């Protein structure tokens, strides 16, 4: 099974984040906080069946939700940020690096 690596990046301030994959809650964490030094808040790695998946990112504390549909055929990296009050995402085949 390929891995879906999700990084929570910019804009998190003591937030509660939830990840649903195909409507199943697979991750929940409180007090997610972006560290200004690296622009990274939290990482989670999920094993996903190959194929199309619907990933829901929910940020309870900010009443934000975003559904991301993706075809996961190989290890995938998903970056999630909160920019101007909205969830933004980026997909990459390479891990995100922080410095």
């Amino acid at each position, binding site marked *: 099974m390929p891995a879906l690596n999700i*990084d929570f990046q*910019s804009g998190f301030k003591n937030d509660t984040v939830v990840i649903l994959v195909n409507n199943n809650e697979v991750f929940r964490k409180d007090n997610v906080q972006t*560290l*200004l*030094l*690296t*622009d*990274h808040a939290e*990482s989670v790695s999920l094993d996903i069946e190959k194929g199309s998946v619907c990933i829901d990112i929910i940020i309870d504390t900010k009443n934000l939700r975003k559904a991301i549909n993706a075809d996961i055929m190989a290890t995938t990296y998903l970056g999630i940020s909160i920019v101007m009050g909205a969830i933004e995402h*980026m997909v*990459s085949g*390479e*891990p*995100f*690096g*922080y*410095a």
Partner: protein
Amino acid sequence: MTETRKPAKSDSTVNSNPDELMNTAYDVTFGSDSPTGAEWTAQPINPIQPISPDWWRCLRFGPVSGRYDGEMTSPNAGKYALDLRVDIDMRHTNSPVLNRVSGDIYQVYNFNWGRYKYKWRVYRESWIVDNPSVSWSRCSVGITGSVRYWKGFHLATGVTIVIPWQGLKIGPAEVTFTSGVKSKSVYSCDKKSSAFRELTLEVDICKSVNNQPTLPSYDTHAHPNRPVDLLQRTLTVESAYAEAGIDVNINPTHTIINDSAAKFNTWSPAELHDAMELHFSQYKGTWPKWHMWCLLAGTFDNSGVGGIMFDAAAAYGGAGEPPDRQGCAVFRNHSWFNNLTSNPTNDTQDAAMRKFLYTYVHEMGHAFNFLHSWDKNRPDALSWMNYDWKYDNRNGTNTFWGNFRMRFDDEELLHMRHGDRAAVIMGGDPWASGGHLEAPPGAMADQVGETPVELLVRSKGYFQFMEPVNLELRLRNITGLPFELETQLNPEFGGVTLYIRQPNGRILEYAPIFCKLATPEIKTLKPKNTAKTGEDRHSQNVFASYGTYGHYFDTPGEYLIRVVYNGPGDLFINSPVHRLRIGQPFSRDEERMAQDYFTYESGMALYLRGSSSPFLQKGMDTLQEMAERFQESPVGAYLAMMLGVNLSRPFFRIKKGKLVESRSADLEEANALTSLALKQQEQDKTTFTNIAYHEFARERAESLAGMGAKAEAKKGLRSLAKYLKERGVKDSVLKEIDTYTKDL
């Protein structure tokens, strides 16, 4: 044979830039059929202009721009020094001219102690001229402009700088400041460098990653994804910063740190800071200073991190041990560097070397107080401080490296070259606080050079909302000779000044309610090498919550404290910045109570450590209520202790022209209150610092003894000694308490 020569054209007019003269290129063709090569014809690329007959007198090798340093020549010769930075002509093809002049002013101190002579400079302030007017003459350049100081109030000030040159000799720069109608001060500054600042970098290496390369060296044309017209050169940490205007000297000695402990896998910020304290040869001594430490390490706790400037507040992901910005780390085991090799032969290896260079330069950039580009609202900046993948996400795949010219952006260069010194220098302002030109200045004085005495500020670090703030000031003799010092450190006596930077960036000078005139309390501090524990130092607790201008710590957030000590003679010492935090109110109840607490009456009652004056009754009532309501917290414990001590002594006031006892001591109530405080202290050892607790207990004992309750006083002192012993307080203090108790 073709040779490119420096230009020559008429410079007889004032206001013509000699760089234009110097930079006009000529193709010079030597006659191929001339055996001597003496015949040649010049073919100018630009239109030829008449050559001034005396142009050679103005020949100049190198830019005028750079760093100059010198002392005041008038009106007080040698009393002040100026570090001048002139940025008006090209220093490097990949480094823009920012058209700025800036400087740092220092006061120069001389102190003679026997045959020992100490000389040091104390930094005073920084200034900048934003758009100077520049007039080029034949053999000199004149620069004028309005001075903008980064902090404090100043009369409108102008500056005129004249820099002459002749061949290799550029300068000295004569710098004249004019403020008011007739006030002038003149400095003469020699040119020191074509860079604007100078930094020493110490790179230590973990044994597990001690493989070449340990430092980057990248040919800018090695990787094909680059700007097509990118200037080819080999970039290293030194040359990348040289282009930016910073001379980086890397210490050739690299300590190899053994990181082979069995259970050790990854580095945390705290471990990195600890390693810096152990291995950074410059860590001890006075900060801030132009020194930086970098560790080439294995893997960070978060394996996605390729490098980190770990020396920042914990809330930002740093070690949380001020002063900030002294050190960084690069993680060699990060996937970025999987293909790193000293001699790259393919694109993958070139990309790894490029990333290696990027990571070093980027982390060092953080130590200059840079945030990431997007955190400065410049997400599309082509800068060392951006992330390639973040840029690409906004602008298209591979666009960052395709457009990046291997440099900092102009705003960053401005900060690095000309920013307020405290905001730039390592160990100065905390990272991300007031560190950029667009933010309020956050500097306070600091010193350059070693002083004979060290002054430190310490505190609990974290205070609850409304908890009175007490600071421990400590003087320590760091010479090899005994040193006599005035040891009254309370600002009321005028020898010490406290500066407080509030969370909103405003800097206040703490002004005590009372000004006291007293006989100096001279104490001899023994030499550091021969002193028994503690004999080389003197500490004192200083209350700083309330003063002439009200409550100084009335807002939650981070405060920066700096203390300046004026000792006997010309001794002037300042402390490093101390950072403390005031917490948020825990409840609505606390917020409501703040309305009564942050008042004149409560502030004065606190300052006086309790009062039974009817004028302060309202304040005392508030403090009493808080002591009861918040008794299970440091706020309540402090107030209970203070009120208890107050009640242990009688209160006298003048009635009908006669001093009468208006309130007698209430030992029972005093004991009840101090017991409450001690109970809280037992539960939370951070409630009182040792020195604060000692002071309270001593004060209470004195009051009791004064009233004849010596047995009670001695019991309290013995309890104090027992408590301090448990806390590891040094024997000399315990012995002094014991002697005092016996003599009571």
